[in-house]
């Protein structure tokens, strides 16, 4: 299965966390699955990071919650809890199995081929859920997770979001070209930056790096080791090391060339 490597927690650590969550009334025995997503699952966390936990149930969570994520599903909310477990800050999200089904139903190849090729029906929260499902530390429910991760790899989600990023990049490329033609070089530089970012996100997804959070873009580029755009070149452009304020067009053209190369290499 083409999923990025996640951190492997020792079995004893998984048991300890599962027990601590249960002791705090944050999970119950009838949960279908519990997994850690986000930066912790990739080993990219820092001392101030929350641990993002996803709890999947087949009935609505009845324990105490203190927030919600909104989704374009039925029901339209995912209850959340922010808490401390063993001194660590955790953020739990309680998804219904049926909400997961509904989310996947928006990311089928039929949807891709029949009008929603860029996954517009998927809300941001739903897309993040799918991306984190692909990069998870499993706390419980191995069978459920295996089935859903297989479904993730086989569905159109990755293709939809790759096309979405490529389309976004194209828009910024056209914007940058128009701004340069109009002599608005400062706006062209910002558009080129955005084109690069969207292109790089498409490139990372083409390597099955499912993460969507832009703050981890550099980490994803390090992870994919792309022949199309090396990390060093990506970082040189992102940090504008070659930008000459007296010749902004040269930098913009350089960036747009990289965006074009990425579009040539990325297969959806």
């Amino acid at each position, binding site marked *: 299965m083409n999923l990025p490597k996640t951190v492997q927690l020792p079995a004893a650590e998984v048991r300890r966390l599962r027990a601590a969550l249960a002791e705090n009334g944050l999970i119950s025995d009838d949960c279908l699955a519990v997994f850690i997503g986000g930066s912790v699952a990739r080993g990219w966390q820092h001392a101030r990071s929350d641990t993002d936990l996803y709890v999947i149930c087949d009935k609505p969570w009845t324990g105490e919650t203190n927030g919600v994520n909104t989704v374009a599903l039925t029901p339209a909310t995912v209850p959340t809890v922010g808490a401390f477990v063993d001194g660590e800050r955790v953020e739990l999200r309680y998804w219904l199995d049926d909400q997961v089904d509904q989310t996947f139903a928006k990311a089928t190849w039929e949807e891709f081929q029949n009008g929603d090729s860029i996954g517009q029906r998927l809300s941001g929260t739903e897309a993040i859920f799918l991306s984190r499902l692909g990069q998870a530390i499993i706390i419980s429910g191995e069978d459920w997770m295996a089935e859903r991760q297989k479904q993730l790899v086989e569905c159109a989600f990755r*293709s939809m979001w790759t*096309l979405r990023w*490529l389309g976004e990049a*194209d828009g910024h*490329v*056209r914007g940058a*070209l128009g701004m340069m033609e109009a002599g608005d070089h400062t706006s062209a530089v910002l558009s080129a930056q955005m084109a690069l970012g969207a292109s790089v996100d498409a490139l990372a997804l083409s390597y099955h790096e499912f993460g969507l959070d832009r703050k981890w873009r550099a980490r994803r580029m390090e992870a994919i080791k792309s022949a199309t755009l090396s990390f060093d070149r990506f970082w040189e452009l992102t940090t504008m090391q070659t930008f000459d304020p007296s010749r902004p067009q040269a930098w913009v053209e350089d960036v*747009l060339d990289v965006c*074009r190369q990425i*579009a*040539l290499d*990325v*297969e*959806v």
Partner: protein
Amino acid sequence: MPETVETGTVVKPRADVGVRRVAGTVTVGWDEEAFELSETTFFIWRQLDGRRAVADVASSVANYYGIDRSEALADTLEVLRDLIDLGLLQVIASDSGGSAGV
């Protein structure tokens, strides 16, 4: 005036032309109008880096497909002229003196 393409001409895709490779099909163009490229045409498209002359591109075609160089040049010129007619390419230099000796 129509652009002419000869062995020494250097062309490259227009900067505003997007490329998509979806399920083995390559399309190029814009939101409102897109064209599907054959495998050979996409191979040629990939060679158009704004530095290599038509003769050099044709040389790559000959090597990659194992065909006669004059045949490769004729095919390459035909493809590039079609792409220019569709407004997808721009001429960077009219005669750079392509070095491949096709």
